[in-house]
């Protein structure tokens, strides 16, 4: 049987035995995001001549975090809930040659790691953040997240969610990220292109990928993907978001001083 071309980036086994299969549920969108990330990095390795060993994947805790776990054939860190961005920042401070891909979820980014999220964007340090947004906490059993729509029932909002939600892409842009885009798991090619742009961006790139959690939203993966496609809309200019629609596309692609480069000027005074 022909192997999946991206399987080269996974460890099927290690010194102590099998490392696959992944633990993700059937129909989960996270694997699609990892696939898109691999395709993007594969092209960048080929086209830009960046060594594979310079790529590091960093995740926190939650379903999104399980994309690094122990099966990535890259350097990776499956780290602390919400703390991906300071850990990634520390790694860059030690070695700016590293190309860091942070894979995170809406809870990891928007709730427990919210403070780190806005400050990483403000610093504009050279990171690519892939945020898989499924609108709830998957790993812990489908609890409400800061991205859950109002009125929706989850395991901790049995009477419906009474809180407003965050628009994570808007937050990233407002906080100072230099590349911001939102796609869905129903837009794989656009997601690959956005990740490539994000990795090539000298600065903080935030790519939000709206994803399905068939288990906790209790819908079939196919229906959820169809809904993601149907409900997402590309807006022109200042056009208002139609009710119930998710704006997708590239929201921000600007140039600003990047932290490592700015700090290098401080260091260079002493050489």
């Amino acid at each position, binding site marked *: 049987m022909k192997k999946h071309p991206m399987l080269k980036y996974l460890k099927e086994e290690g010194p102590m035995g099998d490392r696959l299969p992944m633990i993700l549920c059937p129909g989960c969108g996270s694997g699609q995001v990892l696939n898109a990330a691999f395709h993007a990095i594969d092209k960048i390795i080929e086209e830009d001549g960046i060594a594979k060993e310079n790529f590091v994947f960093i995740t926190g805790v939650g379903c999104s975090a399980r994309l690094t776990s122990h099966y990535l054939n890259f350097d990776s860190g499956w780290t602390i809930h919400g703390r991906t961005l*300071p850990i990634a920042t520390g790694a860059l401070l030690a070695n700016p040659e590293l190309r860091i891909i942070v894979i995170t979820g809406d809870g990891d980014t928007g709730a427990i790691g919210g403070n780190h999220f806005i400050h990483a964007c403000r610093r504009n340090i050279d990171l690519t953040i892939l945020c898989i947004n499924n609108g709830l906490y998957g790993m812990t059993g489908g609890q409400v997240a800061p991205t859950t729509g109002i009125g929706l029932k989850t395991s901790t909002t049995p009477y419906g969610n009474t809180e407003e939600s965050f628009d994570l892409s808007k937050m990233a842009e407002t906080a100072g990220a230099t590349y911001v885009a939102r796609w869905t798991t129903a837009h794989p090619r656009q997601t690959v292109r956005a990740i490539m742009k994000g990795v090539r961006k000298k600065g903080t790139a935030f790519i939000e990928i709206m994803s399905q959690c068939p288990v906790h939203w209790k819908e079939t993966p196919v229906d959820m993907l169809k809904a993601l496609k149907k409900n997402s809309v590309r807006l022109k200019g200042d056009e208002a978001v139609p009710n119930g629609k998710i704006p997708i596309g590239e929201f921000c692609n600007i140039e600003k001083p990047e932290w490592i480069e700015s700090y290098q000027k401080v*260091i260079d005074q002493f050489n």
Partner: protein
Amino acid sequence: MPNNRHIQPGVHYLQGSQACVEGAIIAGCRVYGGYPITPASEVMEHAALRIPQIGGRFIQMEDEIASACILLGASWGGAKAMTATSSPGFSLMQETISYGIMSETPLVIVDVQRPGPGQGYITTSQEDVMQARWGHHGEGSIIALAPASVQEMFEFTIEAFNLSEKWRTPVLLMAEETVAHMRERLIVPPLEEIRIVNRKKPQDLGIAPENYLPWGHDMVAPMANWGEGYNVNLIGLVHLEDGNVTKYDLQMHDACVKRFYHKIEDNVDTISQIETAHFEKCKHLVVCYGSVSRTAIEAVTEARKEHNLEIGYLRLKTLWPFPEKKLRSLIKKVDTIFVPEMNLGMMKHPITEALRDRCRKIISIPSLGSLHTPEYILSVIHEELK
């Protein structure tokens, strides 16, 4: 490597906080992440000034959690890294310390202790000595040093880095406001006489990436940094030696945690250092640590000279791992042990556990928010032994 941007050998007059940063630089610290807090801010400010001068990177983070996480990332990125905080900030760093223990990550955290609980106050304290050992969630040991002078803020910081690299584990420098704000003489030896330890590398041991076990090979595993082609999957879950987590069973769990627990606890005699004075055949004993030892030795000297008391002095230079066996081998029989501490009697507990059958009585000499005077220590000794 030493160059003209390191502190120069010779006599200096420095603050403890500054000496700490100068020691860190000599130890090879090239990343500092921090968040301001009184009375630890002087460490951070000196790092902000000095770290870029030697080609390192300094960053002020959004909180103490992020600051500790900088060390975690930097260490796997290949740098020696440090932060300094004070007690409330130290509480916020505990989760990262726990992750550092599990992932066996070398990093150095300085806690310039202030009194608590809550915001407490901004004066001096030794109220975090138990948090140092037990503050992090889960099992696992810790190394914690207690400096008592500006000289030791310099030397113990270097030692903290050496221990963290040697044992691949977080190391805590449990300073106090007293010793961090103190200004006194620092003697910097010739740099070639200072011992620097660097982490063991799989490359140096001829271990190929496909055979590399990030948590195996030896009691202290060699450490490949990110970016070196070893495809390390850093992990905080209990794991097999190669980082595999699919094979969970109780035996794997047990082996994983006990290995990094025992690498510290079974080597307590190598790691933990003590200092004694007037110790031979003493009838009574003062056991102390940190800056309290400075007034304790005054009290002991005075008690011996002026009052003919056969009282000795023992200082714990390392708080954790606790040198129980060493203490028991040194102390066979004494009458009363006095433990002056800037808390309500914290290290008194492991001391009691170690020596309860080797003495008649153990007396705590507590102080909250200020350093004991020799007179205070002496008055408790007199009251007890009159």
